[in-house]
């Protein structure tokens, strides 16, 4: 934290709405983390080293060389940190799926805050909340006013919140990709600003399954079929996201008979991964009969948002489901408190 940096760069890592896997993924580069420590002074990394927001606030603007920001933005505090770290960093990287596209926290955009609070603070079987306490943004204690951040109705990506210089995809990013990105940043060998630093092909390109013509009469859930271990999973009727998802993982899921779920986000040139999946799957369904098509879709894809946008709802073109302020949920919550 000293001002004299011996020519080293300054590195910050931050964690917003995410699971913590990205923090661990950084350590996946193994002993190379020592090279990172040789190249950078770590000025802020709450998960690993002690540090205060206040000391970041006091830094000169653009004095952090590189900030790897993981996590989506779902509270006002996270939004504040995104703005602060943008202001203080020369290069801000959205690190991992949550920061890039919302990831699993972004699935909250299929509902809203009231409904989430109702589930979390009243409805789950493990909830014991006799006084009906829900998080408040302000609370007057004897010692004075206490504040909590706002919990947003809509989870945002980092790129929807502040300008982002680069994106590193993945839930979590692969060690090789992290290292390649760090080297590219250190050497200044970078793609245009705003790019994803990662592979430019799809998971299918890295998958060894035998692919022939895809023609299917029904989609099957994973528990309904035992894959043969050789044929493309989609050709066996299993909804696999490989054809719209960015490569980088080496096709590790489909190679062991588990369909791709899209954790590396949309491939290069794809703005909306769900739209791309709709296009791809529409070419695969073997029917020209409207009623049969409808049946195949209704029976085979009961949860299109969860299937197509598992990692990408917040980052998708529509970002969320239509917002309805859930007065029903609120009334329910009040009834329970009464």
């Amino acid at each position: 934290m000293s001002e004299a940096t011996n020519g080293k760069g300054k590195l910050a890592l931050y964690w917003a709405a995410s699971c913590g896997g990205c923090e661990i993924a950084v350590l996946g580069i193994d002993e190379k983390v020592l090279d990172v420590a040789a190249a950078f002074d770590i000025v802020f990394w709450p998960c690993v080293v002690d540090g205060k927001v206040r000391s970041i606030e006091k830094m000169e603007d653009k004095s952090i060389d590189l900030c790897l920001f993981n996590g989506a933005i779902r509270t006002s505090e996270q939004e504040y940190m995104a703005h602060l770290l943008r202001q203080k960093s020369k290069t801000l990287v959205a690190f991992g799926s949550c920061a890039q596209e919302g990831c699993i926290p972004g699935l909250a955009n299929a509902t809203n805050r009231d409904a989430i609070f109702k589930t979390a603070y009243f409805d789950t079987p493990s909830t014991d909340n006799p006084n009906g306490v829900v998080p408040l943004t302000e609370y007057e204690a004897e010692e004075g006013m206490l504040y909590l951040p706002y919990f947003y109705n809509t989870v945002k990506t980092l790129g929807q919140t502040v300008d982002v210089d680069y994106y590193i995809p993945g839930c979590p990013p692969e060690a090789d990709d992290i290292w390649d990105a760090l080297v590219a940043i250190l050497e200044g060998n970078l793609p245009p600003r705003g790019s994803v630093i990662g592979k430019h092909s799809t998971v299918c390109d890295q998958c060894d399954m035998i692919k022939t013509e895809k023609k299917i009469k029904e989609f099957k859930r994973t528990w309904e079929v035992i894959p043969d271990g050789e044929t493309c999973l989609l050709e066996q009727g299993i909804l696999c996201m490989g054809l719209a998802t960015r490569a980088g993982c080496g096709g590790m899921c489909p190679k062991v008979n588990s369909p791709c779920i899209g954790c590396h986000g949309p491939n290069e040139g794809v703005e909306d991964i769900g739209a791309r999946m709709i296009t791809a799957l529409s070419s695969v369904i073997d029917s020209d009969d409207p009623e049969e098509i409808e049946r195949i879709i209704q029976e085979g894809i009961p949860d299109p948002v969860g299937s197509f946008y598992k990692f990408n709802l917040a980052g998708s073109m529509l970002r969320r489901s239509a917002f309805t302020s859930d007065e029903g949920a609120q009334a329910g919550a009040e009834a329970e408190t009464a």
Partner: protein
Amino acid sequence: MADERFEPKIVAFLCNWCSYRAADLAGTARITYEPNVRMLRVMCSGRVDPQFVLKALSLGADGVMIAGCHPGECHYLEQNYKTMRRFAMLKHTLKALGVEDARVRLQWASAAEGTRLANAINEMVEQVRALGPLNWKDNWVEEEDIDAALDRLVEEHAEAMEVPA
């Protein structure tokens, strides 16, 4: 609201070979239809990437129409069958996202069916007008004054986190 009637904005993708010619025919035949439709010519209804539809809705369209040759009559043989499947899956997804059924419509109209296309447009405009504006971006707006909350955070930090010398 006053007594101003809501005029929906509808984006229509029309295939070059049938539906755009149907619209032409409606014009030369002086068939009037609602002026709420912005028509875009594409080579085939199969060219309409679902991203086009999502983009239109997210940017302010109240509805989207895709129009093409009747099944079996596609200039590119069977691309409109792909449109049919793709549209069914797009609708299935949009429904799950809470977009009302009438806002997105697939319409077959041959080059001879100017009246059919005009009627479909009138019907759709009426249905979307009844639904009201979509204003999709409003879905993203938070109810609270977030800027004020962010400003307050800075003050709190200055007060609470400053260690006296």
